[in-house]
C-alpha cells in the first residue's frame, strides 16, 4: 500500500517553449509505492511533466522534488533511483539488446537485479538479445524499453505510454510487472491515454488539458462521482419525459429511455422504474473513459 511519504511533488510547476505554454501551475503529490496515472490527449503536457521530473527540461515556473530531493538540470546523483521509459523510445541501432541493457545498467550504477525476470516475462530470449536493435520490431523495442527502465529496480519509475505497440498478451504481462513493482514499494508514474489501462493499473489519476491540471484524485472516487448510464426498456408506451428530473436524458422513445444518472439518484430512479411496465433495465458501471470524456468535452 502507498505510504504517506511523497515520492514526487510538484508545486506550481510550469514550462513554456517560447510563446507556447506546455504546462501551467501543476501541483501534485504522489506517495511512495503509489501507481499514479497521468491522463490527457496528445499535447496536454504529460511528456513535458515527465521530462521536468527527470531534469531534462528546466521549469519556467515552480519546482519539483523526487524522493525528497529537488529536481535540477545538474547534480545527477538523484537520478540513480529512477527508471524511465520515454514515449518514443530509441536505442543505438548497431548495439545488441544485451549490450544496450548492460550499458544502461552501468550508467544507472545499480545492479540489474530484475533483468533476467523481466526478459523472461516479456519473452525476450537469448537469441533476440544477441541481435542488433535495428533488427527489432516496434513491439520488441518497446519491451526492451520496459526492461531498461525497470531492470535495476528503481524507487520511482516514470513510464510514458508504456504499452504502446505491445500485443494484448504482453500488455497483460506488463500489468503484472507493474503490480509486482508496486508490491516491492516502487512508485510508478504512468502517462497514458489508454483509459482502461490507467483504470486497471492506477490508485490515483490526474488529468491534464492544454497544460493545465483539470482533475486529480482516486480512480475509485472518479468512478463514484461519475454518472451511470441507465437504459430502460418498457413493454408498453410510457411518459418517459416524466423521468427527466432523475438525470440527463440521452435518448428516448415511448418504449425506451437512456439516461445519465448520479449515484445518489440511482435508487430513487430504480424505485420509480419499478412502478412502470419494465421489460429490461441496464445500469452500466461508470468508467474512467466517461469521466475523461466529460472533462474534455
Amino acid at each position, binding site marked *: 500500500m502507498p505510504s504517506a511519504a511523497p515520492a514526487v511533488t510538484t508545486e506550481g510547476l510550469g514550462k513554456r517553449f517560447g510563446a507556447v505554454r506546455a504546462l501551467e501551475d501543476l501541483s501534485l503529490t504522489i506517495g511512495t509505492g503509489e501507481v499514479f496515472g497521468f491522463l490527457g490527449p496528445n499535447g496536454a503536457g504529460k511528456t513535458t511533466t515527465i521530462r521536468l521530473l527527470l531534469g*531534462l527540461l528546466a521549469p519556467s515556473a515552480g519546482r519539483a522534488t523526487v524522493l525528497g530531493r529537488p529536481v535540477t538540470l545538474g*547534480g545527477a*546523483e538523484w*537520478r540513480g533511483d529512477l527508471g*524511465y521509459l*520515454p514515449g518514443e523510445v*530509441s536505442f543505438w541501432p548497431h548495439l545488441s539488446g544485451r549490450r544496450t541493457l548492460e550499458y*544502461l545498467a552501468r550508467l544507472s*550504477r545499480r545492479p540489474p537485479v530484475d533483468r533476467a525476470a523481466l526478459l523472461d516475462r516479456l519473452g525476450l530470449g537469448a537469441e533476440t538479445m544477441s541481435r542488433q536493435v535495428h533488427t527489432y520490431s516496434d513491439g520488441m523495442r518497446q519491451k526492451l524499453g520496459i526492461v531498461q527502465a525497470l531492470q535495476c529496480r528503481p524507487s520511482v519509475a516514470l513510464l510514458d505510454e508504456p504499452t504502446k505497440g505491445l500485443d494484448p498478451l504482453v500488455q497483460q504481462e506488463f500489468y503484472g510487472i507493474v503490480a509486482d513493482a508496486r508490491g516491492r514499494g516502487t512508485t510508478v508514474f504512468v502517462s497514458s491515454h489508454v483509459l482502461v489501462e490507467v483504470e486497471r493499473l492506477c490508485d490515483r489519476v490526474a488529468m491534464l488539458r492544454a497544460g493545465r491540471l483539470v482533475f486529480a484524485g482516486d480512480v475509485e472516487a472518479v468512478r463514484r462521482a461519475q454518472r451511470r448510464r441507465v437504459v430502460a426498456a418498457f413493454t408498453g408506451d410510457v411518459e418517459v419525459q416524466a423521468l427527466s428530473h432523475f438525470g440527463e436524458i440521452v435518448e428516448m422513445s415511448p418504449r425506451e429511455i437512456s439516461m445519465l444518472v448520479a449515484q445518489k439518484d440511482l435508487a430513487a430512479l430504480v424505485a420509480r422504474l419499478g412502478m412502470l411496465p419494465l421489460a429490461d433495465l441496464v445500469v452500466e458501471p461508470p468508467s474512467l473513459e466517461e469521466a475523461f470524456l466529460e472533462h474534455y468535452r
Partner: protein
Amino acid sequence: MSVLSLLGHLWRRHRLALLWLAAGSGFFQWAITRVVPAVAQSGFVRQLFDMAPAPVRVMFGEELIASLSARGFLGFGYVHPFPLLILAVWAVRVATGALAGEVGRGTMDLVASRPVSRSAQVAAAAWAVLAGLALIAAAGWAGTAAGLRTRPLEGVAAADLLPVAAMSLLLFAAFGAIALLVSATQREGGTAVSWCAGLLAGSYVLDYLARVWSAIGFLRPLSLFRYYEPQRVLRDGLVAGDVAVLSGVGAVALAAAFAAFARRDL
C-alpha cells in the same frame, strides 16, 4: 565512472571509423615519403612550381616553393587537404554525434535520465575527440617515420616532423572543441554537422583568400588555419603564439560547450 562508461560506448561506436582514418593518415604520409623529389629532381620540380599560377603557388605554400627540399616536401604532406580532411572528419563526427546526435536520435533521454552529469557527457566526448585526433596524428607521423626508415633522405629526421604533427593535432583539437560547442546547442546531429563543416570550410577559404587577396589580408588572423604553418614549424620549431592561440580557442570553446550543455533543455 560515468565518463569511462561513456568513453567505452563512444569507442564501440566509432572504432572502425577511427581505425580507417588512422590507417589513411599513416598511409598518406608514408606515400609522401615515396614521392619526395630527390636532389637531382628538385630543380625540375621547382621549375614546375614556378610556372604554376600565383594562386596555386600560394595554396601549396610559398615557403615550400621557396625552399624546395625534402623537409619542405614532407611538411607539405601535413597541409595537404587529404590529411586535414581526415582529422576534420573525426573531430566533427565524434563531437556532433555525442551530443546533438544523441539528442536527435532520442537516445540522449536514456543517458540523461540516469545518474550521468551533463559535464560527464561533454567530458567524454572531448576525450574521445582528443584521443582519436592524437591517434590519427600519431599514425600520420608514424607513416612519415616508416617511410623515412625505408627511404632515408639526406638532412631529414622523422623527429623533425613531430612538432608539425603535434600542431595538426592542436589545430583540430581547437576545431573539435568548437564542434562540441555547436553540438551542445543543437537538437539534430545533421544540423550540427552542417554548421561545423561550414565553419571549417569557411576558415580554410578565409585563410586562402586572405593570403592571395591583400585587400582582406587583415582578416587572416580570424582563421584558425593561420596558426598552423608546418613550413614555419620545420624552420623555427613550435611557435609559442600559434600554440597559445589554438590552445586558447580550444579551451574557451570547450568551456562554452560545458556551460551551454549544462543549461539547455534536452
